[in-house]
C-alpha cells in the first residue's frame, strides 16, 4: 500500500457514504479517497471532509439496456485510473462495474467495518454469481416444498390458537 493510492468509494443506496469513507480512511489512512455518487446525491459535510473529491455520475442508474451511457461511464471511470474501487454491496452488477473500471483492486466494504477483495475479472464475478444462484435456487426449492408439506400443529400448543 503506497502513500498516494487513489481509492474510489462507489456509493449505493442503503448505506452511509460518510460511514463508508470513514471505514476506508481507517483501513487506508494514507490513501486519497474519491466518492462516487449519483448526480443529485446530497453529500454531507462529513463526507466532503473525508473525500479528496466527489464525482457525480452522469445518470441515476446504469443498465445494460442503455449501453451508451453505461459505456461512457465505464470509460470515465477507467480514465480516472483508480488504484482500487471499493463497493458497498457485493452484488454481481457492482462487481462487474468495478471490474470494468480496471482498477488494480476491487474491494467490498462490509457494514461491519471490514473489507474483502472481490473477483477482479468480469468472468470471475459472473462465475461467483452463477455458483451462488445455483445453490440458492436449490435451497429455495427445498424450502418451498418443506413449507407446503409440513404444516404447523394446531391446538393449545400449536398454531391456529384462538384468543381467550
Amino acid at each position: 500500500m503506497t502513500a498516494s493510492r487513489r481509492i474510489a468509494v462507489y456509493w449505493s443506496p442503503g448505506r452511509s457514504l460518510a460511514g463508508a469513507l470513514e471505514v476506508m480512511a481507517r483501513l487506508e489512512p494514507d490513501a486519497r479517497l474519491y466518492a462516487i455518487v449519483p448526480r443529485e446525491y446530497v453529500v454531507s459535510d462529513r463526507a466532503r471532509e473525508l473525500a479528496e473529491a466527489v464525482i457525480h455520475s452522469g445518470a441515476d442508474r446504469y443498465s445494460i439496456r442503455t449501453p451508451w451511457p453505461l459505456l461512457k461511464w465505464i470509460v470515465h471511470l477507467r480514465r480516472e485510473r483508480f488504484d482500487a474501487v471499493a463497493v458497498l454491496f457485493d452484488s454481481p452488477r457492482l462487481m462487474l462495474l468495478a471490474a470494468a473500471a480496471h482498477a488494480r483492486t476491487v474491494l467490498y466494504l462490509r457494514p461491519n467495518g471490514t473489507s474483502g477483495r472481490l473477483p477482479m475479472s468480469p468472468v470471475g464475478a459472473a462465475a461467483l454469481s452463477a455458483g451462488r444462484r445455483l445453490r440458492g435456487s436449490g435451497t429455495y426449492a427445498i424450502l418451498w416444498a418443506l413449507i407446503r408439506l409440513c404444516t404447523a400443529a394446531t391446538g393449545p400448543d400449536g398454531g391456529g390458537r384462538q384468543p381467550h
Partner: protein
Amino acid sequence: MDVYHTCAGLQALGHTVHLFAARHIESRERTGFEPDTLPFDATRLDFTNSTMTPRHVPPRFRETVDAWNPDAVFFAFGYFLKTYVMGALAHYPTVARYYAYEPFCPRDLRRFKNGESCPCNYLRTPDVCRRCALDALAPEIKTWRLLTWGRDYWVSRAFMPAYHARLLRALRTCQAVIVYNEMTKHLLDGFHDRVFIVPGGIDADRYEVSAQPQNGPLVVLVTGRVEDPVKGLDCLERAVARLRRTRHDFEVWVTRSDWVGAPPGFKATGWLAPDALPRLYQQANVCVVPSAWDEPFGIAAAEAMAAGRPVCASRVGGLQDIVVDNETGFLFDRNDDTMLAERLGRLLDAAALRGKMGAAGRRRAETVYDWKRVIEQNYPPILEALHV
C-alpha cells in the same frame, strides 16, 4: 439505544446489571459493541459463521450467564436465535422484550405487506406466515446472499413447524413480556397474560428548547430512515403537493441523501449523525411523522416533542400513544394526505398554536419519555412481578 438506557437505568436504581450480548464477527452488517466503553458490566460473546447457530449459541449463553447466576434475565433484541436462547435460560425468572413484531412476523418483523398493515399474526397463523416469509426472502435465498435476518431464519430453521412450537414454549416459560404499545400487547392476547407496555425514550437534556425560527420560509422537518417505504413519505409528498396549490411559504426538510428528483418544496439535508439532530429540530417549525406501518414506538415524534416542536403523526402503532391529538400536535389517518394537508396547514398558519403545542410536547417528553422516567416508572412493577 433501548438496551443501553435500560441497563444504565436499572443500575441507577440500585440493581447490579450485566449485559451479555452476541456478536457475529463474520456478519456483513454492523454488529457488536466494546464492553469497556459501557457504564455497566458487559460481556461480548463472539461467534463465527460456523458457531452462530442454535447448536452453539444457547449453550454458550447458558454457560456464561450461569457463571454470573442472576436473579432475573431480560432478553433484549434478537431475531430467530433469541427463541433458542430463551429456552436455554428458562431456569431463571425471565422477561422477553420485543421491539417490533419479531414473534408475530417472520417475514421481516414489520407486519407490513403490499403497502398496508398485515392482519396476520405468526402465533395464530403460522402456515400463512411461513409461506409469506419464504416469499419475502426468496430474492436473498435464490441468489444465496443472505443478510442477517435471512441468515438467522436459515440457521434457526424458522421455516419448519417445530420453530413455531418452540417459540410458543419459549413465550410460556417467560414470567413477563415487554412491548412498546397497546396494539402489540393485544397481539399477545391468549398467548401471555402478563404483558407490560414500556415505551422507548429520549434523553430530554440533549434537546434545547429554542424559539421557533422566524426568518425565511417555515420549515417542516421529517427525520428517520425516510427512504424506507414504510415511513410513508409518499403520503407527505401528496399532502405537500396539495398545500402548494395555495401557498409556497414553507419547505420540507428530509434527512436523506439519495434523493434523485426530489419533488418541489422538498430539500434533502443529507444523512446526519444522531448528535446533529437536536440542532436540526431547532431549525424546524413543525415535524411530521407520516409512517404507514404500525410504528412500534416512533422515536422521531418523541425527539421532536423534546425539542419543543409540534408533531403531525399518523394514527398508527405507538405513534398514537406518543402524540396527544390536539394537544402536542395532530394525528391523521394512515396514508390520508388530505387530512395531513389540512392539519399541517393549520399548524403552518398559526405561530401561537405551534408554540402552545410545542410547549405541551416538551412537557410530555420530559415527564413520560425521558429515559430516567421511563425506567423509574415502568421497571419496578416488572421486577416486583418477578419477585426480584
